[in-house]
């Protein structure tokens, strides 16, 4: 840098020796570079916080709508498609056996359809078991909470997803700092 300044013969203020001015310029540039880096870091953090806030809002919205409802909807769509596949297998297998064409493939298609239905039934049983267990746990926790007689005004908002999102947002805001 100093060599460039000397070779290009840049301006000197009054009687200041060129070496001193170069050192000052270098120091000021270094400070500016540090400030630039700090600002870039801050901009990156602010962008990240904006993304996190957006994610939090999305999560709060989903929780408000009911994640269970969304999951059940997805599960329902999947179940309907699997059931349709099973029905197609069964129909094709029955038709093949009735018409005596395709040979053993008819039994194979019937077996596949029956297997799919069996797996669906098992999956439904598993989901029902999990749901009943979680419902029982929830009921136990409610009973326990009622037993310790927590004030209703304190427990009602804490349960809502919106309060959860707000608390996360506050934490994020605190973490972000001034």
């Amino acid at each position, binding site marked *: 840098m100093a060599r460039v300044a000397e070779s290009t013969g840049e301006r000197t203020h009054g009687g200041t020796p060129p070496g001193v001015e170069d050192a000052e310029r270098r120091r000021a*540039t270094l400070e500016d570079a540090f400030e630039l880096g700090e*600002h870039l870091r801050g901009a990156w953090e602010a962008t990240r916080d904006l993304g996190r*806030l*957006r994610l939090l809002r999305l999560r709060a919205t989903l929780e408000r709508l009911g994640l269970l409802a969304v999951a059940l909807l997805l599960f329902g769509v999947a179940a309907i498609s699997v059931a349709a596949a099973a029905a197609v297998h069964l129909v094709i297998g029955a038709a093949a056996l009735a018409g005596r064409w395709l040979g053993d493939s008819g039994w194979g298609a019937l077996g596949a359809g029956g297997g799919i239905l069996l797996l669906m039934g098992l999956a439904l049983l598993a989901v029902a078991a999990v749901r009943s267990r979680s419902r029982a746990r929830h009921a136990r926790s409610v009973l326990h909470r009622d037993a310790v007689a927590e004030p209703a005004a304190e427990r009602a908002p804490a349960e809502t997803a919106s*309060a959860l999102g*707000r608390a996360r*947002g506050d934490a994020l*805001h605190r973490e*972000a700092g001034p």
Partner: protein
Amino acid sequence: MSAEDRTYRELSAETRQRLQGHLLGAKAAAERIIARHPRTAVTTSAGIGGVLGWSGVFHRSRWPAWRKVVRVARRAAARL
């Protein structure tokens, strides 16, 4: 408007302001550096631009992609 919506709006407005402040600060610092070393800035920019151009980033076939980048950047700037 619900309470969490209000909180979200306030928080995101603050964060956007913070981002804008940082961007303005970075711009000012860069401008100071450029003003202090104009020749170095020009040389460096030309060097970076030359290398990028040589690598084909600004080839005509990339213009649609650049247009998309500019559109996205404009939208992001308008939302700030």
